[in-house]
């Protein structure tokens, strides 16, 4: 018997092992390149949470060498000024600074997401002044280092006329980055032509009688707050457990077909068109809608409570005309200007002395106009008394990004259906 021939080991290896051809080499280098590319595409953030306290010389550093340019781009929300812009005209007449006023902010989340990439890249966002709410995104703006520290030396009217309560708000102690534009409440608006009984309670938003005709806000904080208050929880002191319970309560409202939709600023149009009969609402909007469109909608702070928030002036760090912006901020703290604004927008005025000014303005008028202005001066929605504040809750602030993401993760899926 002849021995079976043992093939050359080199040949065997060649037959059984894959050799790396040119294709493989290309493939491997391609994969490696892809891996490298994947890892290289990180999205840069700008700041670190908790870095709220600026360096002592930050104000001096930012404002050094800034000069007035005679123009200014102002980003604000709709329904926040008389459409004729009388206050801005007075400002231009007094200072010669031209103001381009744009109502581009409809909701905080989209606004932050829109300007974040530009601000992170150090680019001008096209606005020198913006009005932002003390919500989740306010902290994101501050933590990212996107807001210019305000030079209070240039805000004498603010120092003299602003309500002391606004100088120590938790979201921006000492008003380092912001001063209030106005405050407002979130409550319920309804159309008394469609709903004949008076609305007094949060539970009315869950009433099956209004099936398919109830609106809520798509902002997760606004929405979550109402869910919590409906369960008797104070949102400011809420825990993740409360959030889950509130989410369940809100899901009930949704799965029952009671909810028509979740809205941003467009809720007021939906109310006007009869799309919703009862909706979560911001205090001054309803008043302005009634004035401008002749409607007769009602606004109530529910028995269980409403929320109070503050919309604030802030200057983005990349602003081209920050000095002009600062001048406009201080201008709005003149008593007559603050009064004039409050008379039209009917939101909480941060200047207490404006109340007497509005009464003075009323005295100069007659008939209907006089009664309307007197009503503004006496309105708890514009000048809330301490008893009114007792029914109002503040927003919850989030200590960490993880906490805030947990909150978003609980309420976002409700809005997104």
């Amino acid at each position, binding site marked *: 018997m002849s021995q079976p021939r043992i093939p050359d080991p080199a040949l065997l290896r060649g037959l059984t092992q894959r050799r790396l051809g040119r294709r493989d080499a290309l493939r491997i280098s391609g994969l490696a390149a892809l891996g490298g590319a994947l890892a290289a595409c990180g999205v840069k*953030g700008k700041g670190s949470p908790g870095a709220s306290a600026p360096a002592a010389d930050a104000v001096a550093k930012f404002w050094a060498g800034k000069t007035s340019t005679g123009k200014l781009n102002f980003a604000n929300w709709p329904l926040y000024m008389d459409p004729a812009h009388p206050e801005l005209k007075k400002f231009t007449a007094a200072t010669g600074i031209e103001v381009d006023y744009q109502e581009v902010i409809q909701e905080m*989340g989209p606004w932050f997401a829109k300007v974040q990439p530009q601000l992170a890249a150090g680019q001008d966002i096209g606005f020198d002044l913006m009005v932002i709410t003390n919500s989740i995104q306010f902290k994101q703006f501050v933590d990212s280092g996107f807001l210019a520290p305000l030079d209070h030396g240039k805000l004498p009217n603010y120092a003299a006329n602003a309500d002391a309560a606004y100088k120590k708000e938790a979201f921006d102690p000492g008003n380092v980055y912001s001063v209030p534009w106005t405050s407002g409440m979130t409550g319920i608006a309804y159309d008394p032509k469609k709903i004949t009984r008076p609305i007094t309670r949060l539970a009315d938003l869950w009433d099956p009688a209004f099936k398919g005709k109830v609106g809520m806000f798509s902002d997760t904080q606004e929405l979550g707050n109402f869910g919590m208050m409906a369960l008797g929880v104070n949102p400011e002191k809420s825990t993740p457990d409360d959030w889950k319970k509130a989410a369940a309560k809100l899901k009930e409202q949704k799965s029952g077909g009671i909810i028509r*939709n979740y809205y941003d600023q467009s809720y007021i149009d939906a109310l006007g068109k009869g799309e919703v009969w009862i909706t979560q609402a911001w205090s001054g909007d309803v008043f302005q809608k009634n004035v401008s469109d002749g409607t007769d909608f009602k606004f109530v702070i529910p028995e269980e409570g409403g929320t109070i928030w503050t919309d604030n002036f802030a200057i983005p760090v990349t602003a081209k005309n920050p000095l002009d912006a600062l001048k406009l901020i201080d201008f709005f703290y003149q008593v007559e200007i603050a009064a004039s604004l409050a008379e039209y927008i009917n939101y909480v005025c941060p200047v207490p002395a404006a109340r007497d000014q509005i009464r003075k303005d009323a005295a100069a008028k007659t008939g209907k106009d006089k009664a309307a202005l007197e009503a503004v001066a006496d309105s708890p929605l514009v000048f809330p008394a301490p008893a009114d504040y007792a029914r109002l809750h503040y927003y919850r602030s989030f200590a960490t990004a993880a906490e805030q*993401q947990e909150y978003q993760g609980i309420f976002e899926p409700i809005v997104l259906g």
Partner: protein
Amino acid sequence: MLRRRLAPYLLVLPGGLWLLLFFVVPMVTMLSLSLQQGDVVTGYVFTGHWQTYVDAVVNYRTQLVRSLIYGGITTVVLIVLAFPVAYWIAFYGGRRKATYLFLLLLPFFVSFVLRTISWRQILTDEGILLGPLKDAGLLHQEFHVLGTPVAVIGGLVYNFLPFMVLPVYVALERIDPRVVEAARDLYADPATTFRKVIFPLALPGVFAGVLMTFVPASSDYVNSAVLGSSSTTMIGQVIQSQYLTSSNYPTASALSFTLMAVLLIGVFAYARALGTEDVMKVAAR
């Protein structure tokens, strides 16, 4: 000699660079984004976190499935609506074919979003359509079209109609009339002629139409945002909101890739079912 060998590569270079810059780079960036972790303040860092895909699909499976269903219904309705239109123009349009096609496309010279918003005005609860019907007592006060799947699918059908009519028309237009005559000569009744001759010959057009409508309709976010409500949210809206409201780039990218994968698989399965030969015919056009 060398120059001749390089010529084809040089010719393809501009197109290739274009693809690289505007297709490959964004795709790789998005893939990378989907595997990153972090938050918008501190920044997102690549960690190869595949779990994002799982979480995204679990959290938003309802919207994903809903989008495919809406896309599917839209496509079927479109075939039913577009086929007779294309058929009529192709066979009975005569000398005015071009005019009819132009009329069909005329509304689409107005912006997509604007047209959708105008539907909102028409269909609103107390608008020109429903208002009088409600006042006349024909409808309940609570009755509404906006915010329902009907409104969203209606909007999708309206917006994608030409993308179905045109390919079907092209396929029908190419049918040799002698083939139809031959069918009649062989005693096929009109129904049989349609079923056995015309429809099979039009299938490549239908296939192209399905590709051009199902894919964009399933990933559309405008119609649902404008005409729908929170119970009609489509996956495109979720992606848009994750990108542009929450700044949650990883989840948004992961959802985009998932949607792309699902649609690609769907399209290939569909091509396989219809026979690859037809796909080649479509591709060859």
